[in-house]
């Protein structure tokens, strides 16, 4: 356990000065910032009706912008950059001759990736909330200061926390696929290209109303657009599929990394 913590800290040190950390910060700010600009530009269209909590609609539209195309690509790019540090520096051969097991290396890399994604979600939420507050400071009719961001305080099913958890689950499948691809493929652009192709196929299936879209890991984030929670289950079918994909690919990539992959 101690070695895993050391390895995790080392992974954090490696991303110092790298673009991966900037991608998390800038990526988290990107949609909230442009959404805010759009609201400022067309503010009359966004004014809520009297007595209506503005946060619900604000979050719905904002997160639609995040989940449609942007989130899968950001995750793909983040993983590619994170693991490309080792390819670019030619350091796999160095890591694999250090007195630390491959299992710990694998898990510490996964942990750093999940930490960065959680950091992305946290920052994005902070930016969205700040955007709402700024709008109300600018024009009080937006009512963001009168109402609370109710997504936080409603039932577990519709709470913003629950929504974020589901959004995170929606990216797990493609995260596992690209984690595997990223340590196997040295070519950063090929890696990103595969992610881009996956996202384009997902959008095409979405527009074409394909029912089988729920099986495509690249489409899971897209299906979070205008998300309505399942009345009977906590996780919808596409989220369960993303989770299953994650578990299977995670196990396979672990076996590959620890037994076959030589760097």
């Amino acid at each position, binding site marked *: 356990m101690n070695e895993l913590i050391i390895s995790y800290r080392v992974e954090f040190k490696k991303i110092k000065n790298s673009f991966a950390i900037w991608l998390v910060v800038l990526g988290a700010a990107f949609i909230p910032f442009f959404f805010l600009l759009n609201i400022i530009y067309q503010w009359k269209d966004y004014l809520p009706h009297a007595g209506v909590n503005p946060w619900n609609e604000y979050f719905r539209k904002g997160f639609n912008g995040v989940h449609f195309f942007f989130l899968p690509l950001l995750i793909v790019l983040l993983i590619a950059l994170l693991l490309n540090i080792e390819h670019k520096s030619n350091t796999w*051969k160095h890591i694999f001759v250090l007195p630390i097991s491959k299992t710990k290396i694998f898990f510490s890399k996964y942990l750093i990736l999940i930490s960065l994604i959680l950091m992305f979600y946290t920052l994005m939420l902070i930016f969205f909330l700040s955007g709402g507050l700024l709008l109300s400071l600018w024009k009080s009719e937006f009512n963001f200061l009168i109402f609370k961001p109710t997504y936080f305080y409603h039932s577990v099913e519709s709470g913003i926390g629950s929504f974020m958890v589901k959004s995170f689950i929606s990216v797990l499948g493609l995260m596992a696929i690209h984690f595997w691809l990223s340590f196997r493929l040295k070519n950063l652009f090929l890696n990103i290209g595969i992610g881009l192709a996956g996202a384009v196929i997902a959008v095409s299936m979405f527009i074409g109303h394909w029912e089988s879209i729920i099986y495509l890991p690249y489409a899971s984030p897209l299906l979070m657009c205008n998300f309505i929670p399942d009345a009977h289950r906590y996780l919808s079918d596409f989220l369960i599929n993303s989770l299953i994909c994650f578990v299977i690919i995670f196990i396979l990539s672990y076996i590959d990394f620890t037994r076959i992959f030589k760097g």
Partner: protein
Amino acid sequence: MKNANELIIETQNLEFCFNSKQKILRNINLRVDKGSIYGFLGPNGAGKTTTIRVLLGLLSDPENSVQLFGMKLRRNRSEIFTRIGSLIEQPSLYEHLSGYDNLDITRAIRKVSKKRVPEVLELVKLSNAAKKKVSTYSLGMKQRLGLAIALLAEPDLLILDEPVNGLDPNGIVEIRDLLTRINKESGTTIFLSSHLLSEIEKIVTHIGIINMGELLYQGTISELRELKAYKSELSIETNDNQRALEVLGQKYQVSRIANDLIITCESKENVAQIIHDLVVNNIDVYKAVIVNNDLEQLFLGMTNNYVVK
């Protein structure tokens, strides 16, 4: 008590192939003694780096033919790697980080004291550049930082693949001195590869010569020097070269170049016999010089399919 002749690296009929058709390494039987500086020589593409990669488990060894510190690598990975420092091909460095941070990453995993970082930086003369990003380093500085990383945990075995690559002549001398000092002061066994004998001839105690995936020679440097005497050419000048040619031509391969006779010697004893034969036949010997027999020539001879039994 530790055995002085303990083998630190041992391979038994090591073979490696990327596909089943072409073997990259064939029957490599390395024997690296404790405390030795073993020079692993061979031209580019001979199989040096592949051997090193197999030794370190970076390429598969299905026959499990590698033993390090008397232990099989597959089952004792962590224990073995605690005792090894390595530098394989070009140094593995995070260029977006400083030299210090690069060392600190390895230090943390190897659980070495923080005090050791400035020590190794001083050792490789990089203290002044420690805080600079590695991307600003010259090739020689990167090589030295790679060496510092390998030395960080004061390993029992250093495996260095072409460690003086990219260094200027002063840098080469400094690294040679450093390696000799580490070997003498700490008893560190050093296994280093090179494609130039002249680069490492002065520091190695043992030599292994590999070409086209086969180990052509393995032994101490003094044994190699003896071997060189067996395969040399003797240049002599006498008061009567014509008669000398007649006397020696029956037993040896003799050619005449200007005022000298060039005789191919098979052994050190041949040299004494030649002189003796000339003296017995009342031929005065003005000059007798061994030519074309430096180690480099021998190395080149071997690697040009000059197989020495």
